[in-house]
């Protein structure tokens, strides 16, 4: 079995109009910039995919990565916890103009809904958001004298994930706090596509230190020296690059 993908265009070729796509990362850490940009390349060349529902903690920063995906007009709906950043202009303008739908989810609930999607748990109860506007319309139940809100699983057609080491079986490790939502999204998507900084042979990752076992991964593409969103933004980058 070999889940290695030869290049970025192949990696994102299966994503179709209207699909739900989870994108890993918390701010820029763990954001699969190269996969996102490959998806933008496809859209620029073909007009597809569009009308995507994207799941991410944030809503992009500056004009690269997720922000660029929104800016070119591929995203119909965003499910996130914190659509603010140092430079949130792209999402903000589209949201205020009614051009993009927002489902705001508390961060821990977002993480748990994604895990639930991967773990076959269709619903669970959490104290989070009880008594707030974000609980409106959701079932409430009392357990042991305390009120809890029922939340539902989140699944996706695709997950775009950034990892550190990977092998052809799909086993993954992450780098520091770039782990964040990535391992959860691997579990919750029908197709999980991962960019890794380095491909290694099976067995080179100590079985004790595998964070995402290969069963949750469908494709792996090696992207050495991946871009950091934070660095790109400090350099004033935008994507697609504007011809000078």
């Amino acid at each position, binding site marked *: *079995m070999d889940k290695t993908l030869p290049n970025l265009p192949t990696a994102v070729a299966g994503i179709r109009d209207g699909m739900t796509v989870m994108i890993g990362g918390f701010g820029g850490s763990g954001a699969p910039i190269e996969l996102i940009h490959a998806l933008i390349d496809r859209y620029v060349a073909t007009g597809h995919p569009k009308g995507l529902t994207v799941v991410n903690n944030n809503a992009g920063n500056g004009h690269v990565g997720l922000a660029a995906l929104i800016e070119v007009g591929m995203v119909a709906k965003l499910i996130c916890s914190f659509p603010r950043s140092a430079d949130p202009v792209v999402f903000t303008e589209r949201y205020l103009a009614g051009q993009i739908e927002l489902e705001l989810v508390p961060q821990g609930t977002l993480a748990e809904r994604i*895990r639930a*999607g*991967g*773990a*076959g*748990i269709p619903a669970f109860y959490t104290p989070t958001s009880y008594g707030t506007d974000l609980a409106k319309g959701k079932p409430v139940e009392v357990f042991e004298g305390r009120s809890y809100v029922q939340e539902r699983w989140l699944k996706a057609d695709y997950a775009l994930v950034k990892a550190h080491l990977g*092998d052809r*079986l799909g*086993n993954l490790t992450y780098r520091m706090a770039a782990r964040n939502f990535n391992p959860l999204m691997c*579990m919750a998507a029908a197709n999980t596509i991962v960019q890794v900084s380095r491909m290694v*042979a*099976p*067995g080179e990752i100590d*079985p*004790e230190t*595998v964070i995402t*076992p*290969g*069963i*949750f991964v469908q494709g792996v593409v090696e992207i050495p020296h991946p871009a950091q969103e934070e660095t790109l933004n400090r350099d004033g980058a935008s994507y697609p690059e504007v011809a000078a």
Partner: protein
Amino acid sequence: MTSRLSPSQMAWRAAQDIEDGAYVNLGIGFPEMVAKFQPSGRQAIFHTENGILGFGEAPPHGEEDWDLINAGKKAVTLKPGTAFFHHADSFAMVRGGHLDVAILGAYEVAETGDLANWSTGPKGVPAVGGAMDLVHGARRVAVITDHVTKDGKPKLLQRCTLPLTGVGCVTRVYSSHAVIDVFNGRFVLREKLPSFTLGALQSMTGATLHLDGPAADLVVPDL
């Protein structure tokens, strides 16, 4: 002329349906033998409930590491690409539908796909283990079972009489006499031992065997 398949032969037959690269959980007992019969050129990845993916066969006697066991508490070995994880992640793989195939034993299977394999009734100590999770945990849930009980009574029934493990979960039965799919609430005969007529097989079966084209010969090697 084969009059019934041995457990090894049933396991061999089940192994022929496992694709290269499939993620597979094999239940404790007879189903564990399936791993031995993978067709050459194919390599399944085996999952065990207690937190290993991609383990290898049993170690030589005397070289067991009792921290490296499968769900049947038998010693296994590492292979390149093995991963360890805790029990909640392990059953996330199961419940979340990430396995391709689960192969289990059975006391009874109903034409509805209901399975009874955990309890023979109120006597004794009840034990369920991971069976009730596994029946909801794979795209294909197959059963390896003798076609009839030791007393000659059918194990494939219209409805189970023993406590259920799961409702409508079984997709294929590898019996000692036949390969039978469960589809739309009916048993569909795919293969049968050539030495048995359809009528003879039907008389050993507690629910109607339907045909979807002629049943193929169930032919397995001597094992």
